[in-house]
């Protein structure tokens, strides 16, 4: 038997979570299911969707080089972007977590690239890395480099350039989350380790990393998803080129859905996209049992 207070609390709680619940059903769970279903149809918006079975998926995996390339590119990008992003942020947070004067200004300065809107940054990178009129190549030529790299315009360097320009985000939200986590580690742990004669590196490995590990995991999971969402730079700077070398999954979904109006095919790609993200997340959560430490 539930008491009256419990019933009241239960009802109140559902009122409180109602906006989220409605949003989850209508804008997250519903659309996810619909995406999967539409993946089995041909749909051009003007006529109702037509069931085509596995055709989209078969075509995707056997007869669509651009799709294969977008998968490869997205994984390639993630493979570099995530480790650089997460370890870079952790390193910065670690260095900033001190009582030296002026650190607040540095923290704020490092956050600046993150607050400038993605499209503005994309425009800026496009210009700075322009092979002819860009500042970087102008500098390189002035320094005597006769044929500097073509950056975004060369199929061999376009992905690496995209990874490079993302490095400025190591001073962003992820670093803030690490800093908040570092400040929660009780001083006494460090003092005990210090008295026991643990050196700097040992204190980092044996105190900081284990106590921060749940937050490292959170940042890692979010970073992988973020990386899979890569879109703006590819859309605005290269439009997926040259030779589709910067065609990423979300850009390919967007192009199929809103440029070629192949909503069914785009939904099938979206389904693969969701499956990849869920698999990668589950793998990370499973692997985390080996290294993440939860305090009692």
């Amino acid at each position, binding site marked *: 038997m539930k008491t009256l207070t419990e019933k009241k609390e239960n009802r*109140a709680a559902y009122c409180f979570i109602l906006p989220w619940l409605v*949003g989850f059903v*209508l804008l997250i769970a519903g659309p996810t299911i619909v995406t999967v279903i539409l993946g089995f149809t041909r749909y051009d918006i003007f006529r109702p969707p037509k069931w085509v079975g596995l055709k989209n998926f078969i075509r995707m995996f056997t007869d669509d080089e651009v799709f294969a390339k977008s998968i490869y590119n997205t994984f390639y990008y993630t493979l570099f972007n995530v480790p650089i992003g997460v370890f870079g942020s952790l390193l910065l947070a670690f260095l900033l977590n001190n009582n030296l004067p002026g650190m607040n200004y540095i923290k704020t300065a490092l956050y600046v690239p993150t607050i400038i809107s993605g499209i503005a940054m994309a425009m800026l990178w496009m210009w700075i890395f322009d092979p002819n009129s860009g500042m970087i190549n102008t500098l390189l030529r002035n320094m005597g480099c006769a044929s500097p790299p073509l950056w975004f315009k060369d199929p061999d360097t376009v992905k690496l350039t995209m990874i490079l320009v993302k490095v400025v985000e190591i001073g962003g939200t992820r670093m803030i989350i690490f800093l908040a986590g570092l400040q929660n580690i009780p001083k006494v742990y*460090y003092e005990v380790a210090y008295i026991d004669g643990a050196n700097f590196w040992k204190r980092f490995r044996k105190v900081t990393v284990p106590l921060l590990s749940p937050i490292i995991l959170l940042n890692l999971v979010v970073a992988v998803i973020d990386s899979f969402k890569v879109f703006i730079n590819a859309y605005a700077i290269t439009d997926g080129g040259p030779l589709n070398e910067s065609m990423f999954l979300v850009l390919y979904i967007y192009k199929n859905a809103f440029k070629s109006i192949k909503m069914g095919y785009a939904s099938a790609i979206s389904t693969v996209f969701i499956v990849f993200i869920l698999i990668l997340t589950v793998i990370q959560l499973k692997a985390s049992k080996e290294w993440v430490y939860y305090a009692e």
Partner: protein
Amino acid sequence: MSNKYFIGQQGVGHAKNWKIALVYIFLVTLALVFLFPLIWMILTTFKTPDQTFNHKEIFWPTPWTMENVIKVFSETPLMLFVKNSVIVTFFSIIGAVISSTLAGFAFGRLKFRFRNLLFLLVLLGMMIPSQATMIPRYLIFQKLRMIDTLIPLILPSWLAASVQGAFYIFIVRQFVMSIPKDIDEAAKIDGCGYFKIYSKIIMPLLVPAIGSILIFSFLENWGNFLDALIYLNSESNFTLPIGIQYFQTQDFVDWNKIMCASLVSAVPAIVLLFSGQKYLIKGVNLSASKG
């Protein structure tokens, strides 16, 4: 030589002077590199197109000119884009704060059926980006006849229906869990209802968390590009992120105008960052240590 400063760890050790110098050199260099995009935007905004084109020689604007700023504001619909972005961002932030504190309070404090299961769904929401479901989302807003209005850019925040929305709920929940329970138990005995506990007692204590949600939500919506791209068709409805690209689609790329528009979009963000920086770290207390 060493002194009372420590690096990287709390309250222990005395860093050697050369180590401190090294940390400073590294961080200050990096900060300057990271500030470069902003500096370049400012410099280009105040250069003449001639100077911009010859930037091989000219780094510093000589002389500084207001020409671009005046031109962009008088000859292009930039003010309109700013207005639309302000509307989207303002209403989205309010929605994000309300929806995340309501749900975060419930998940952090109240007992209810399926709480753990539902919270798992919140976390699942952090894993399904809106990019993956853009087609049904578009179809929904099309059925509701909301394409080419600002509503599809605002509504999801009110329903916490985004990766970020779920993250804000998580932030609030962790924060609520760190607030001692005695405080609201006392209020309960005084006969306060749950909504009063939320609005009168918990809300004021949540200020740091709300501060960081405010900043994150501002950045998320002020820079929202993909949704604007998908949902907005007519120029009069464009927000700033789309507007910045507007200058690229003309016959040639007008860098002065693009940088000017970018600067206009960066200024409010920078003001917010400098005035709210103290909340950034205080608000994101994810470890939920019991206070």
